[in-house]
């Protein structure tokens, strides 16, 4: 056979395949199938007798036309792609759209970095404020709820009525608790509790002042603190046991493991030291009391007091708490409480005592009784803070809405173009919503970070620690996403819809300013609202600050600085010689005056006497205080008529009490023109009790929120009624005088605790709630203004840009930079003025309402209001002025070409 005739099937097939393989329509497996077909056909033809070559060529022809094959294979391939694509695109379409929106949104946002920054920061501040305020509100509302028993835990308070005046007291008779437990089924347990401050020592010669609580042995049944060591049930059973908080244990012994350790009690001489029987968690800040150490009642209180206590109904020094068997039985118990008064307290005519029930979780915000354990918060303040936080958030949202609209309008031309090529309205709305979403999310994250960063500041302002863990989880998981969605929907929809409703041709021709007059009006309205809120807040802040300053700096009528007040416990009355103590104290050069009395200022708010003034028909309720000769001097009271006690002569003693001092208000109330020498009569038998030898100038016994009432000082004949010692110190000598006094004290009265406080501190503490309020409102006023300013910046910039062309024309026609600036600024100044006119009267009225709760208050002068309005106006002018000047300075040619 000739060389050329030698036929190789495989080579032929390979050659064929090579040709086909070059065409993209044929996949490898298609070629495999075709090759197989080729070979099969060739084989079958060979079997019929053809030569391999002829068979192959015939089979090759049988394949068909190459181009036709390419077409057919290609068609099937595309059909497959399309089919696969259709299934996936149902899911992918949404994602693709979102992705493209997101891309465009990010690009837009990045393009307008400046405005985006304003958006983000305004909203972030609003969000941060809202977060912080809700944290604070939640904190305040959660007091005492951490006790597992809080649903069944109540405090019993008492109401004392005499001479037509009723006073509520948080302290109760010691007999109350055991009686409740004994006589009332619904009571599962009743415990007594109290606080004092004394010095203890862990063994070294070093003493530390410690807040010591006392409680009945079942205290931890009612208040289930977590025990790190020791057993709750038995920890207070044995006398001289003590349960420490973890940090106190660390303070004393350097370790939490302090069971069995010994504590010396130099301030409680009758107790032979304490043994630690338990360690508990620190008292959470959200509790209406706090202590470092708690010991059994019988250990802390002097023996006579502790033992006689259970039948004593007529003095009060304990806080009584009841744990009910069942939360629902509270009303039942409340109904039965009057039985107590009938059974045990009906033996004193003229004085009626009733008991009431209050839920422990209500104490912090709603209880305003005499002798509360500590300064409570006020429910009103919580609502106020929550409201203010919400307000700033709303301001931030308004900002966002405004600026979003401005931003949308700025890109109006782009929208116009897109609309003319048929972009659907929904797509546009979606676009803007996505941008809003990006910005709001960024704001939310920033707001969260801001809130976390500002938390220490809030704790400082509010004077408490705040627990963040729970709330943060809540916000991140649920609150924030909801908030973001809410803000996006409410703030983003408006500009999106507004914008997509514009007719494209008008937009293209640049006549935005006129056709959008409706939009601009709404924007301006919102800015007015923002500024109105800011001005209002500012006025409120200024007013409250003024009032607080006034109250703190007002002349109280006595000299409250450098005065220490000591407490004499009830069981020591009459058991010491006041003059001895006085002389002992006076040995120190820093001690200038020492006086004894029944009550000290800020303590007693109950009018407790009702003598009949001479020549007056009826009894007059008065503050009846007994004191020694030196007390008025110690307090620095002014004698405005007659003499003080220190100059009292023996002949002044007539009647049961002898000599009286009255204050000016008493003189007026008694209708006396010449008070010296007048008598005060016993209301029961109309016998004279003594004569007035002098008049003291009116002074404040308590907060300036309360009016000054008539006051009578009775010169005590014996020391039995003295409970307080007022010691006036030389300025600067407290550090050395106090320890000296304490030593003298324990020497003379070995078992009495040396419990003291400074009088000016006591007065300051009266205003703590107001100060807290003011600090926080002030911060928010500042923030509100800042947010409003941000909004104004954006708006002014937008307005200036919109009118670039107009400005250019004016400039060409000869207007100066000043003219233009004035023109633009005046419009915005008008806004601020309107805001002022809206908010100033409202703020004035609200401020007056708040001030009505104070007996002594400032006059809300025009000054405060004008100053606030002026401050805001100045800020607005600065912003608008800057923007206007910048706009006016643009080269007129450039702005005329601005298209």
């Amino acid at each position: 056979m000739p060389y050329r005739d030698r036929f190789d099937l495989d080579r032929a097939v390979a050659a064929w395949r090579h040709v086909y393989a070059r065409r993209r329509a044929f996949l490898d497996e298609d070629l495999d199938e075709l090759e197989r077909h080729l070979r099969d056909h060739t084989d079958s033809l060979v079997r019929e007798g053809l030569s391999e070559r002829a068979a192959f060529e015939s089979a090759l022809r049988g394949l068909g036309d190459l181009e036709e094959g390419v077409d057919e294979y290609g068609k099937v391939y595309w059909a497959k792609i399309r089919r696969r694509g259709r299934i996936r695109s149902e899911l992918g379409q949404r994602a693709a759209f979102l992705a493209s929106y997101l891309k465009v949104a990010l690009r837009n946002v990045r393009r307008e970095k400046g405005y985006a920054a304003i958006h983000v920061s305004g909203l972030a501040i609003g969000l941060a404020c809202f977060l912080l305020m809700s944290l604070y509100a939640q904190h305040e509302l959660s007091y005492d709820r951490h006790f597992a028993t809080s649903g069944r835990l109540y405090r019993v308070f008492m109401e004392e009525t005499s001479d037509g005046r009723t006073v509520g007291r948080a302290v109760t008779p010691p007999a109350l608790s055991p009686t409740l437990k004994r006589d009332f089924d619904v009571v599962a347990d009743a415990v007594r509790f109290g606080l004092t401050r004394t010095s203890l020592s862990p063994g070294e010669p070093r003493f530390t002042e410690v807040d010591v609580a006392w409680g009945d042995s079942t205290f931890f049944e009612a208040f289930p603190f977590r025990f790190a060591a020791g057993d709750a049930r038995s920890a207070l059973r044995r006398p001289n046991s003590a349960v420490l908080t973890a940090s106190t244990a660390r303070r004393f012994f350097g370790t939490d493991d302090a069971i069995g350790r010994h504590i010396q009690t130099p301030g409680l001489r009758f107790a032979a030291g304490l043994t630690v029987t338990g360690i508990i968690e620190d008292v959470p800040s959200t509790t209406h009391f706090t202590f470092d150490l708690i010991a059994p009642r019988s250990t802390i209180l002097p023996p006579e007091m502790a033992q006689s206590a259970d039948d004593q109904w007529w003095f009060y020094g304990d806080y009584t708490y009841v744990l009910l068997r069942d939360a629902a039985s509270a009303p039942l118990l409340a109904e039965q409480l009057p039985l107590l008064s009938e059974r045990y307290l009906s033996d004193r005519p003229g004085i009626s005592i009733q008991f009431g029930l209050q839920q422990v979780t209500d104490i912090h915000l709603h209880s305003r009784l005499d002798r509360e354990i500590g300064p409570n918060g006020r429910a009103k303040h919580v609502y106020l803070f929550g409201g203010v936080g919400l307000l700033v958030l709303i301001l931030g949202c308004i900002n966002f809405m405004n600026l979003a609209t401005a931003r949308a309008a700025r890109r109006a031309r782009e929208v116009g173009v897109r609309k003319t090529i048929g972009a659907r309205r929904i797509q546009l709305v979606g676009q803007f919503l996505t941008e809003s979403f990006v910005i709001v999310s960024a704001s939310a994250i920033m707001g969260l970070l801001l809130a976390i960063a500002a938390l220490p500041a809030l704790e400082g302002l509010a004077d408490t620690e705040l627990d963040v863990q729970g709330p943060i989880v809540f916000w991140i998981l649920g609150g924030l996403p909801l908030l973001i969605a809410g803000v996006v929907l409410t703030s983003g929809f408006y500009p999106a819809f507004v914008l997509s409703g514009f007719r494209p041709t008008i937009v293209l021709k640049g006549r935005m300013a006129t056709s959008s007059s409706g939009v601009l009006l709404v924007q301006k309205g919102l800015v007015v609202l923002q500024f109105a809120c800011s001005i209002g807040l500012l006025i409120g802040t200024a007013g409250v600050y003024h009032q607080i300053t006034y109250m703190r700096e007002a002349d109280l009528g006595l000299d409250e600085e450098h005065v220490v007040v000591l407490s004499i416990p009830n069981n020591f009355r009459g058991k010491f010689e006041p003059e001895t103590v006085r002389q002992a104290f006076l040995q120190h050069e820093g001690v200038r005056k020492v006086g004894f009395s029944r009550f000290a200022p800020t303590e007693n708010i109950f009018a407790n006497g009702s003598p009949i003034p001479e020549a007056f028909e009826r009894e007059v309720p008065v503050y009846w205080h007994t004191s020694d000769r030196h007390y008025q001097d110690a307090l620095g009271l002014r004698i405005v008529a007659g003499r003080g006690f220190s100059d009292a002569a023996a002949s002044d003693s007539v009647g049961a009490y002898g000599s009286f001092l009255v204050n000016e208000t008493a003189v007026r109330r008694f209708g006396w023109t010449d008070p010296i020498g007048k008598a005060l009569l016993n209301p029961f038998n109309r016998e004279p009790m003594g004569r007035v030898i002098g008049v003291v100038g009116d002074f404040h016994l308590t907060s300036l929120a309360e009016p000054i009432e008539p006051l009578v000082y009775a010169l005590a004949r014996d020391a039995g009624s003295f409970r307080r010692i007022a010691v006036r110190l030389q300025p600067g000598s407290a550090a050395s005088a106090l320890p000296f006094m304490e030593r003298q004290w324990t020497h003379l009265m070995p078992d009495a605790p040396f419990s003291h406080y400074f009088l000016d501190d006591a007065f300051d503490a009266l205003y703590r709630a107001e100060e807290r309020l003011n600090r926080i409102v002030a911060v928010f006023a500042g923030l509100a203004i800042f947010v409003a300013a941000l909004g104004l910046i954006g708006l002014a910039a937008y307005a200036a840009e919109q009118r670039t062309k107009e400005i250019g024309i004016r400039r060409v026609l000869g207007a100066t930079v000043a003219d233009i600036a004035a023109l633009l600024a005046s419009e915005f100044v008008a806004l601020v003025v309107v805001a002022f006119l809206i908010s100033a009267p409202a703020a004035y009225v609200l401020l007056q309402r708040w001030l009505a709760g104070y007996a002594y208050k400032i006059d809300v002068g025009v000054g405060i209001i004008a100053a606030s309005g002026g401050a805001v106006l100045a800020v607005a002018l600065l912003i608008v002025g800057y923007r206007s000047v910048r706009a006016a300075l643009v080269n007129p040619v450039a702005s005329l070409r601005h298209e």
Partner: protein
Amino acid sequence: MLPKPLLAASFEPLVLALLARGESYGYELIQQIEKVSDGQISWSANRLYPLLHDLENRGLLRATWLDAGPGPDRKYYRLTAKGEKALSQARRDWREVHQLLVRLWGPAATPTT
């Protein structure tokens, strides 16, 4: 030779019908149709195989590769349940057309051309 449109229209039902008789592969199908149609219908590979692939993509056929000696494996096709349903539908459709034509061209009808 039948006109192209008819060939094209009948392609799918014929393939399904042939595969209803059992699993088969491309070359065999071509031979079978030539035998059954007495040479009237002659499919080319370049047109049959794409159709088979399309039917496979649409889920009417399932394919398996089996060893066939020297050279590539052979691709066998068989009807799926969906394919059988499509075949029944095609049968109904063609029967309807056929009956219509018979009615018009039947013994009583006279062709006008």
